[in-house]
């Protein structure tokens, strides 16, 4: 019994740490008149990654975990992989750590977001499959991450993280009610790198570069 309690303590400790770390990098993104999506702090200088379909025609507003509400500027967007990069004027934000490679089928994953508007919810599951999908754009076929962790509207743009707290994907879709799809973090990394190199190496969120705005 003692061993069991001890084990449950360390497992809970690991879970607590993971949840706290990710939630400090989790934001609410309001782009449409109704509803909101999630986003993650990609870079401590104020770069926020979210889904393209989360940002609407209005100026997106980002709500940080400490309840600061900031107007965001759209840095780049890519409908093909459903990603958008925003910038807010803030410093020393808690950014996420991307995983170095694709997860394996069977690995435990945790989805963070705001399902049905409930802020900072966590759901868990495993990587169910790594399906390939054809895009309408130039990339052709992409590997996606399918998970059995339940998602709901409001999870879009939120992170899918592994047991070490590294981001493996960006939650993007719900298929057939019980199949959740995430965009691999490697695509997100590539998207951010392209967006930043298009704007030049000197990334200064406080000085908007008109060419970066699409």
């Amino acid at each position, binding site marked *: 019994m003692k061993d069991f309690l001890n*084990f449950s303590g*360390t*497992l809970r*400790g*690991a*879970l607590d*740490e*993971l949840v706290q770390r990710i939630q400090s990098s989790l934001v609410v993104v309001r782009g449409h008149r109704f509803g909101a999506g999630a986003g993650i702090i990609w870079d401590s200088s104020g770069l926020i990654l979210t889904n393209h379909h989360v940002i609407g025609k209005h100026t997106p507003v980002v709500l940080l975990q400490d309840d600061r509400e900031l107007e965001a500027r759209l840095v780049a967007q890519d409908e093909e992989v459903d990603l958008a990069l925003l910038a807010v004027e803030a410093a020393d934000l808690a950014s996420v750590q991307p*995983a170095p490679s694709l*997860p*394996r*089928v*069977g*690995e*435990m994953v945790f989805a963070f977001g705001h399902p049905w508007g409930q802020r900072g919810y966590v759901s868990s*599951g*495993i*990587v*169910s*499959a*790594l*399906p*390939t999908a054809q895009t309408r754009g130039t990339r052709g076929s992409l590997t996606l991450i*399918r998970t*059995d962790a339940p998602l709901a509207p409001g999870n879009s743009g939120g992170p899918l993280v*592994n*047991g*070490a*707290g*590294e981001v493996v994907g960006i939650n993007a879709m719900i298929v057939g009610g*019980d*199949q959740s799809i995430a965009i691999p973090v490697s695509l997100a990394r590539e998207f951010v790198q392209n967006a930043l190199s298009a704007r030049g190496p000197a990334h200064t969120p406080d000085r908007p570069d008109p060419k970066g705005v699409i």
Partner: protein
Amino acid sequence: MAKNVLVELSEALASAAEQAGAATVLVNARRRLPGSGIVYGADLILTADHIVEREEDITVLAADGTEIAAKLAGRDPGSDLALLRLEKATSATAEPASEPARIGQIALVLGRPSAEGLQASLGVVSAIAGPVRTGRGGMLERYIRTDAISYPGFSGGPLVDASGKVLGINTSGLARGMPLTIPADLAWQVADSLAAHGHVLRGYLGIRSQPVEIPAAAQKALKREQEVGLLIVGVEADSPAFTADLMVGDILVGIAGSPVTNSDELYSHLNEERIGKATPIELLRAGQPKTVKVTVGERKP
């Protein structure tokens, strides 16, 4: 990845999926979405019977990506299991768990419904129930339910424990689309029988019956409280029951020392081991108990 107990658990699950996934195959034997199956022997695949809609032109896609032609080796619609024989052997045989599934145990549901690779979902063993009539003349003594999602095409795939051992075979073909799992020991019994005979051997008496109330006086003569028995309403000519002189009007109340109150109970006693054996059948004839030995025959498939 930084090691913590969560990462270790996660890696153990992924490794269990990988290990059992090596013996989980795609079975292409119907027009719609393919189903799944497991490698039961070097050249034998155990799968769900309802996904095998044709007996020829069956192909199996192994975990390593090789496509192998297969033929139907036997089927048992009653337990929704079928055995396929491969034209050439494959590696990695599925290993059944040595202990039966326990409620609350972590379990992975695996399938390979597409060429894109293994698919998995996670849950716990939610319930172990049974017996249940399966609607195709079959009886499932026990079945396992889990809360893991069964994705389309998962029928015929395994339910595995955290070390990758097979706890059972998943199918949605036994209970009107509701996914359930046939426990490994039962599935292997059926598979052994299919491999040896091409069908499952079931015992045969040759009687038709219906449940009736047993009068209080007859229960007293029986020296036990048993309110219901099976009234024999027909005896087939030259059947084991006929040879042993069972008669219309007898009430069957027990077999091999166990009371029988409905046909399901009788059915579950008439298993493969009983065939050819002289089995004591307890009757009420004219209100008096009588035991008759019947040599159980083999039911024609």
